[in-house]
């Protein structure tokens, strides 16, 4: 009813090619941004205790995981290359950022967070090289080589963690205009704003890439690599570019995870294969080849278990924490299968179908 595009005429190709051609979508996105940038912080100020929990436990990690999911989606969803090495690429970003900020403490941490993406970019390209010869699941195994090798490096190369006795990244305090951005003194609110800005900005860039020539060449490689070649798309550069951009996003997400979410320190174990699986399940559920799906997936896989635990808590059922955890794990699996059966293209497709239905509502056609 209110979601109807009748009467919205596009008079230029530019208008038709906009990412959100429908007015209501633009309003919706605007509202979302408004809520994220004003509503949520306001809420957090009004209810500091809950607000803090909400920012630190839900919003910040949600945004960071969504960014990592976008990264993986560029590789797996848009270019069709399955990767099981996301965790390690995130780790490269985190360790690169740690090295950079300890070697050059004078430069602002946000610069280093973004710069660290280029390091994981480079590593990603190296491990993407086999994609010239290998396809499909074979390539997935090649990315496992990256995962285990990099993880080994994180533990074994003490230079990476500055020879700390703890063997972990110890996040030093970094400030912007005198406000702490990292470390224990950085408030969840500050970190939230930084994360939000970076994630929104990078999502915008990802959307630009995907809607343009480069995105089309990725999808062409994914859908029919032979035909893509005959369109003049070189496979290796296209795949390597996907690896590069994907790893950049994962790297930035990894660096943000350590510096703006954990904010104090992280063991290399954080970047284990489980992290890779975690992000992978997000894009499966959210929808392969969809930016908004990456957000949906992150929300479902990361936030849903928290809500489940919280529901079990509130309901007062006498279930042990362990049982809840087991049920959570099981439910995640069931949901993955369920969504695949209902809609193999993930929540993003469901969302689209929903929008389509709304568009023509109340008629079925």
């Amino acid at each position, binding site marked *: 009813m209110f979601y109807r595009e009748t009467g919205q005429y596009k008079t230029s190709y530019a208008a038709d090619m906009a990412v959100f051609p429908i007015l209501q979508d633009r309003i919706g996105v605007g509202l979302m941004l408004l809520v994220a940038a004003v509503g949520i912080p306001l809420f957090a100020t009004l209810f500091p205790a809950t607000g803090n929990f909400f920012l630190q436990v839900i919003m910040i990690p949600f945004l960071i995981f969504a960014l990592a999911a976008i990264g993986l989606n560029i590789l797996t969803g848009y270019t069709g290359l*399955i990767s099981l090495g996301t965790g390690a690429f995130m780790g490269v970003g985190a360790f690169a950022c740690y090295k950079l900020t300890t070697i050059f403490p004078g430069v602002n941490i946000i610069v280093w967070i973004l710069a660290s993406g280029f390091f994981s970019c480079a590593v990603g390209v190296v491990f993407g090289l086999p994609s010239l010869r290998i396809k499909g699941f074979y390539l997935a195994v090649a990315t496992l080589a990256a995962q285990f090798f990099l993880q080994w490096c994180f533990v074994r190369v003490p230079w990476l963690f500055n020879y700390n006795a703890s063997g972990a990244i110890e996040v030093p305090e970094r400030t912007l205009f005198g406000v702490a951005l990292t470390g224990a003194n950085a408030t969840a609110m500050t970190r939230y704003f930084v994360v939000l800005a970076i994630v929104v900005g990078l999502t915008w860039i990802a959307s630009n890439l995907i809607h343009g020539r480069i995105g089309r060449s990725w999808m062409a490689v994914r859908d029919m690599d032979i035909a893509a070649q005959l369109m003049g798309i070189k496979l290796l550069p296209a795949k390597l570019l996907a690896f590069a951009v994907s790893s950049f996003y994962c790297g930035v997400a990894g660096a943000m995870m350590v510096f703006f979410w954990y904010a104090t320190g992280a063991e290399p174990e954080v970047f284990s*294969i489980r992290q890779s699986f975690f992000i992978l399940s997000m894009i499966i559920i959210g929808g392969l080849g969809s930016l908004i799906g990456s957000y949906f997936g992150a929300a479902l896989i990361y936030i849903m278990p928290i809500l489940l635990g919280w529901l079990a808590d509130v309901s007062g059922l006498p279930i042990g924490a362990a049982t809840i955890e087991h049920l959570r*794990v099981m439910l995640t*699996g069931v949901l993955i299968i369920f969504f*695949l059966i209902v809609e193999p293209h993930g929540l993003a497709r469901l969302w689209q179908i929903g929008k389509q239905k709304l568009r023509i509502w109340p008629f079925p056609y």
Partner: protein
Amino acid sequence: MDILYKIFIDPFVQMGGAPDLLVQTLWEGLVGGVLYALIALGFVLIFKASGVFNFAQGIMMVFAALTLVGLYEKGVPAFLALLLTIGVMYALALGIERMVLRPLVNQPDIILFMATFGLTFVLVGLGELIFGGEPKQMITEQLWLPKGAIDIKMLGGLVSLQKIDIAAAVIASIMVAGLAVFFQSTRIGRALRAVADDHQAALSVGISLNQIWVIVWFTAGIVALATGIMWGARSDVSFALEIIALKALPVLILGGFTSIPGAIVGGLIIGIGEKLGEFYWGPLLGNGIESWLAYFIALAFLLFRPQGLFGEKIIERI
């Protein structure tokens, strides 16, 4: 120069210097390889018959072993527990066919792969929920599996063969032989091969895909159980075993996703290669390189033979 010596000469000097250790290393690699091969075998069976890259094979192994031990701990006699576990694996195969494969028939490979990914979560949660997360002892003695070791004095030293490892090798061989016979000379085996070649053609000659899937997943479940028992006997039964099952992936790369001999030869190459690498070249990097060595061995092979050792040469047609 020194580093070149350490890489190219020193390990071989060591091999020659202590041949008993070399034999022992090869043996350990062989046993590890047999177990990798068994996990890979489960993958191959399912991939051949249903085109599904079954990510849950590792957890199926843990789940099977856990069920066996869990039932025993709940007071069920060992062999009855074994039978019941086989029953559970059958039920699991039925359930998977009914709830996962059938609704997802004709979906792209990646979707099915993701579904088995979901299955992994379900089995982890279910296993922990029913049997608890504590590591459990494998009931080797109760299942009449041998204990102890045979020490052979040879080559100026001692080679010690664990009886359980010998049993693992024997059981694995019997299983592979049994599967080969099953595939070659039974009606179901022929149907399986037909399905592996072409789903639609198989359907058109009246083979029930659903039935075949159940059989294949059940067979893979049995293989998983055998692997679980063997690996459980070597360490213990815990969810950490799941990660080890990932080692079957480089094996698959080597052997090709559809080749049973490939899985076995690949398993042995990875098993032996990884042990030799860790033992003789590992010290150069401060040891502990086993976690990624197998993947690099597989990758190196792959760059020369993208279709794996035994896979058919891929001719792309358009």
